[in-house]
């Protein structure tokens, strides 16, 4: 069964460093998402991406964050200058197409980011 994959599974970085989290969505999916879960808190939406542009972003998704689909398979989240409060589990998700299939999002296993 097709699944969303994410790399790395764990990332430790120093405050102020840039990190790139990578995701490979399910191949025929058209909509891509990033969510994050700070330890002990709810899973929260960061950004959605469709047709090679951001379709919606949350207040969290400030200028330090960017997303890109550099080729036909990868979807990346970049944090330019990490802060301690960026430490979280980051989930990538994708969904298929229009209507009900667009609503159903399939998630990857997550990348646990620790900023020291």
């Amino acid at each position, binding site marked *: 069964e097709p699944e969303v994959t994410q790399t790395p599974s764990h990332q430790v970085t120093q405050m102020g460093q840039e990190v790139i989290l990578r995701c490979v969505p399910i191949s025929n999916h058209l909509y891509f998402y990033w*969510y994050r879960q700070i330890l002990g808190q*709810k899973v929260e939406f960061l950004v959605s991406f469709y047709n090679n542009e951001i379709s919606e972003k949350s207040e969290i998704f400030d200028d330090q964050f960017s997303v890109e689909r550099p080729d036909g398979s990868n979807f990346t989240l970049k944090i330019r200058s990490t802060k301690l409060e960026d430490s979280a589990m980051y989930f990538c998700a994708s969904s298929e197409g229009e209507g009900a299939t667009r609503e159903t999002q399939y998630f990857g296993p997550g990348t646990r980011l620790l900023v020291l």
Partner: protein
Amino acid sequence: AQSVTQLDSHVSVSEGTPVLLRCNYSSSYSPSLFWYVQHPNKGLQLLLKYTSAATLVKGINGFEAEFKKSETSFHLTKPSAHMSDAAEYFCVVSEIGGYNKLIFGAGTRLAVHP
């Protein structure tokens, strides 16, 4: 604004007994609702979804949920718990319009004891 409230942060059951995980939603419209499960060190797996068809929705691994508009509830149930059901469960609503961002509840951790 839409939201979901999971009424229990932790639920503990014995193997073979029924499971009930409670969720209430807030929405001005008929929402699309989901339950996701997260096993330790795993991703979020879709258990089931309600999208305005039948109010009783069957999912994977014997789970089901009933949409009750009058009670604004979408509780998750399973007749007989298995040890492998131990995980965190999230009730989720899809935001109306826009690009369907998901709004998560706080999660319920289910423990299953022998």
